[in-house]
């Protein structure tokens, strides 16, 4: 409790953000929901793998769930669209849908980059 409180003290946003990032990097659990080997799902997995390798080093784990084989899992994570990437850890849960082809927006979606920086990078 105590260290958490100090890191969230107002007036030190920089430290807080860095701490968050560090905490986030310590443990990433990602789930990629696909439905069969469609071009979208193949692309999504390839794009995700690359982004993770570059930005998360080895500190991540990706579970690919093929809904055609395990349809009962779709309900739990409220999957409607595929491919859907679910960031299970760190909290909060985030969802990104699509083939993940736009790397900057994936990074923003995963909170590996603040929204403002993405605009600078793409623009």
């Amino acid at each position: 409790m105590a260290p958490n409180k100090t890191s969230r003290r107002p007036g030190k946003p920089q430290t807080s953000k860095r701490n968050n990032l560090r905490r986030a990097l310590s443990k990433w659990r990602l789930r990629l929901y696909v439905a069969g080997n469609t071009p979208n799902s193949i692309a999504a997995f390839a794009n995700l793998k690359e982004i993770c390798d570059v930005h998360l080093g080895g500190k991540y784990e990706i579970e690919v769930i093929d809904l055609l084989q395990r349809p009962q899992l779709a309900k739990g994570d409220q999957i409607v669209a595929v491919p859907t990437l679910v960031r299970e850890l760190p909290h909060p849960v985030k969802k990104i849908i699509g083939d993940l082809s736009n790397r900057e927006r994936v990074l923003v979606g995963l909170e590996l980059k603040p929204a403002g920086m993405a605009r600078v990078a793409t623009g």
Partner: protein
Amino acid sequence: MTFEETPDEFEANIASLGHDLKAMERAGKISIDYVEVERRQIEEVGPFDLEGLFVRLDYAISQIKAKRVLLDTIEVLFSGFTDEGTIRSELRRLFRWLKNRGVTAVVTAESGVGRFVTRHGLEEYVADCVIVLDQRVTDQISTRRIRVLKYRGSAHGTNEYPFLIGERGLSVLPITSVGLTHGAPSERISSGVDGLDDMLGGRGFYRASSVLVSGNAGTGKSILAAMFANAACDRGERALCFAFEESPQQILRNMRSVGVDLAPHLAKKRLLIHSVRPTSTGLEAHLASMHQLVNDFAPDVVVVDPITNLISVGSQISVKAMLTRLIDFLKIRGITAVFTTLSMGNEFEQTSTEISSLMDSWLMLRNEQVGPNRERLLNVLKSRGMAHSSEILQFFISDSGIQINSEAMELAAVGQED
């Protein structure tokens, strides 16, 4: 599959209509899947499809071997995703998929404005049947209406029909007035008044006929109607009374005072008195609830006392239309019905004529001043299909109900001529 209500909310709502979804779920008859689409939680990066939805539907369908699928407010998807083009093409694919899957699907959507029936134009994907529901308020009374906009491969009715949401869900009023196809039994049943039966060819009303009893205030219409119901119960039949002026207790007390005790019939559940204020709902809603009660109680005779009070909630035309439907509905079920109507002063014959053309028999009650006394008079204005008396009879209300005074008959006739 619900898109707006969680399973708990959905179950609670349906429970208020008398369906226990939890029990059905346990029995494996129904499967509820709440689809939560929250745009704020979802980032769209690149092309996607709605295969996840298909997978969930397919899984649920095969789990319980579903024959029917409900997609409640699927248009929520339009607000959940930014890529409207994908949603549209996926919905088209979904509806085709449902059809190929061999399930009957009901899809709900909010109504739209302009040329669209629904807000997102969902009807363009639904080829087979489109049903439009709405609710309108006229003179502070609202009526829900249903209309079949299109139904491919069927000769569907095109009118708007009122419907009710009652304790057991939605009930639509069948428009039974499409054809005059009901049978005409030749069986006769007693009017409950001995002398009156004599006037009606000696044997009373035809079964499944409709009888109008008109008269001024205090002429004994309600008593006549109640005696008719009482006689039916005495024969072991079932009678249903719609009372628009009096409460059941009041009717019991009043009838007891003239020697007709309805209480035993009520206790044996042969008699049901349904008292309701005419202004409590719209005319159509009255008709709908009357239909429902008739279906539930399965009476042999029905009394509506008085039908005039319904005019207070509708125009003359709509009251007549409603009565037509009610009469046809009762006839088809072989139910004999007595309607009372209050006539006002001199115009009474005219106001009653509107309704009387629908009726098989028409009895008129009057109070006439003869010498120093007021006398009660009754005559049969019409009675289809039987030789009925054209005399005006005097009657009195005693402690054993209405009694026709056949001896004073001529006297009354003389009094009328004056």
